[in-house]
């Protein structure tokens, strides 16, 4: 009771503080550009390398960062992220370790929003309430839980709200207009548009497909929209932020990491640099995209 009263009093007297995700998208809006959201799998291929990549990402131009929480059975992921998850689990990854990484990252960076993406079962095993408490305390800003559709969201919604974690919902090409409002009910932070029907890292949505899909979502929400699944190249990331507000790049970065490993699957001295160079190239294209678009009113080249 006391706690409830306190919370009520706080929200009554204090102005709502913008969380990191809101603040970031507000700043980007002022700058008139879209966001790059690079992805890394926690502990892939080892704790130190993935920590170095995480810490290097903001400097390389990441606006937000998405961290994958490894799971033994990643049903929505293609071969690239499946392999990343296997390497991470072999390296000792766990939910607790992923949260520790964020805590360490937050010691140096209090501004870049961090979103965790994963599957439900490790969160259930950790305990949803304790997970949300620890995630928020570690400096996590939002959660994307792939196999937790709106229909089952109550499992996590209360705890996430209590600790002011955004629940970022996935919208897919199969989500029709009648279902959209229901899917976005309780969604906060941003909307994650899964731009293809398929697993991660396999196909890429065309510019035309994105141009048709994004306004459909805009019609029912004011939240920023990120495009993920199949965004690989700087050009594709640029197209994504022209149609939407952010581009998530995952498999392409992991492919770079994987190709840099030695024959035993261990990081080489240039692994971190190669991944961050690619982030830099993507960030460069994303930051110039809207400017380029305003010069060519017809929009980006569809090739």
């Amino acid at each position: 009771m006391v706690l409830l009263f306190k919370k009520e009093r706080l929200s009554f007297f204090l102005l709502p503080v913008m969380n990191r995700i809101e603040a970031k998208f507000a700043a980007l809006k002022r700058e008139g550009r879209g966001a790059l959201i690079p992805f890394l799998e926690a502990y892939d291929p080892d704790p130190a390398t993935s920590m170095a990549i995480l810490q290097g990402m903001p400097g390389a131009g990441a606006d937000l960062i998405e961290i994958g929480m490894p799971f033994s059975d990643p049903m929505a992921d293609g071969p690239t992220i499946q392999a990343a998850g296997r390497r991470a689990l072999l390296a000792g990854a766990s939910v607790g370790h992923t949260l520790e990484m964020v805590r360490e990252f937050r010691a140096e960076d209090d501004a870049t929003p961090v979103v965790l993406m994963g599957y439900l079962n490790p969160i259930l095993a950790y305990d949803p309430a304790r997970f949300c408490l620890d995630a928020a305390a570690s400096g996590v800003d939002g959660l994307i839980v792939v196999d937790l559709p709106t229909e089952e969201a109550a499992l996590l919604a209360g705890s996430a709200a209590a600790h002011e974690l955004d629940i970022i919902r996935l919208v897919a090409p199969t989500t029709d207009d009648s279902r959209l409002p229901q899917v976005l009910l309780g969604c906060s932070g941003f909307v994650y548009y899964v731009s293809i029907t398929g697993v991660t890292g396999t196909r890429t949505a065309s510019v035309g497909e994105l141009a048709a899909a994004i306004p459909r979502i805009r019609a029912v929400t004011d939240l920023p929209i990120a495009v993920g699944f199949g965004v690989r190249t700087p050009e594709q990331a640029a197209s994504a932020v022209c149609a939407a507000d952010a581009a998530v790049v995952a498999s392409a970065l992991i492919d770079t990491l994987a190709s840099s490993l030695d024959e035993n699957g261990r990081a080489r001295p240039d692994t971190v640099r190669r991944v961050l160079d690619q982030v830099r190239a993507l960030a460069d294209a994303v930051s110039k995209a809207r400017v380029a678009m305003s010069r060519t009113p017809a929009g980006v080249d569809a090739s």
Partner: protein
Amino acid sequence: MNHAPALPNTLRSGPDGQGRFGAYGGRFVAETLMPLVLELDTAYEAAKRDPGFQKELDYYLKDYVGRPSPLWFAERLTRLWGGAKIYFKREELNHTGAHKVNSCMGQILLARRMGRTRIIAETGAGQHGVATATVCALMGMPCVIYMGAVDVERQRPNVFRMKLLGAEVVPVTTGAGTLKDAMNEAMRDWVANVTDTYFLLGTVAGPHPYPAMVRDFQSVIGTEARAQMMAAEGRLPDVVVASVGGGSNAMGIFHPFLDEPSVRLIGVEAAGRGLDSGAQAASIERGRPGVLHGNRTYLLQDDDGQITEAHSISAGLDYPGIGPEHAWLHDIGRAEYVGITDDEALASFQLCSRTEGIIPALECAHALAHIEKIAPSMTAGEIILMNLSGRGDKDIFTVAEHLGAKL
């Protein structure tokens, strides 16, 4: 005082509208699949209400599958063990040699009704893959079967059967290369082929409505067995025993008996090299509730919620989860779940072959091994009904290897 009308006192009304059996079941799939799962639910509910659908299914079950399957009094095993009378429900006599075809027949008719033109399925032992390939051949539909690479190796005869039937068999090399991995890969195919593809799931697991739908199609086993038992003995059995991997053959024979409190229901899980050996597939006895493959149920998992590999000599039981209705029946105490090891199953496999002239699937050998434990202490007036859900021809290579025989 106004009382709300009393709810019928039944355990057979589940799941609820959310696909829940108590705390289990549900629909834990990515948003891409969610509209498809909802569409399937609507289509299945409509088919269930359509007498034409049931009539069509009955026709295929009778003249193509060969139903009803007989109820066999296993007289020599009964005499050998000297206790309860043992009856087999002979699902191994179905076309394709197992119970799996019951649900495949129902689902392929539903897929056709829904206008789907391509079928995918997962398989462990290959029995579900063979049954799926069979009904696809019958309907002239292309068919892709995902099968763990390890299972492809240990179930070669079934792989060849599927290919003969025109199916494409895709070996899955991720994970341990068994049923769990095949299921992951089938779901990945489905998410990439949402417009034309029907996922013909083989067991009473997965997102709602699969657990309820597959159970309904398999309940023909228990419904027939009940009537046959009444005809043969004039009463219900005292115990019903079935092996449990995902749990479709057990759910099929249990369900029509759920509301008969006098009938004990026993599901036999694979204890592999021993329940505490770390190499087993006993999800209820050694697992904890969690979410995998679209449903909440008992799962073999580590402290971090990573799914652990199951082990069983029987590929059909080699799965780290179990259907959600079983999880619920366990929690409310309506059904009991016990474990039988690889070695015990191997011994039963041989005993059944020699004594009844029936080579049982290794899955069913688990159920029989448990009956060997309980039958002798029961009276001659008591009756045990076992679901002999598949024949063992597919297992002869595995068994030969374990017995040191060269084929």
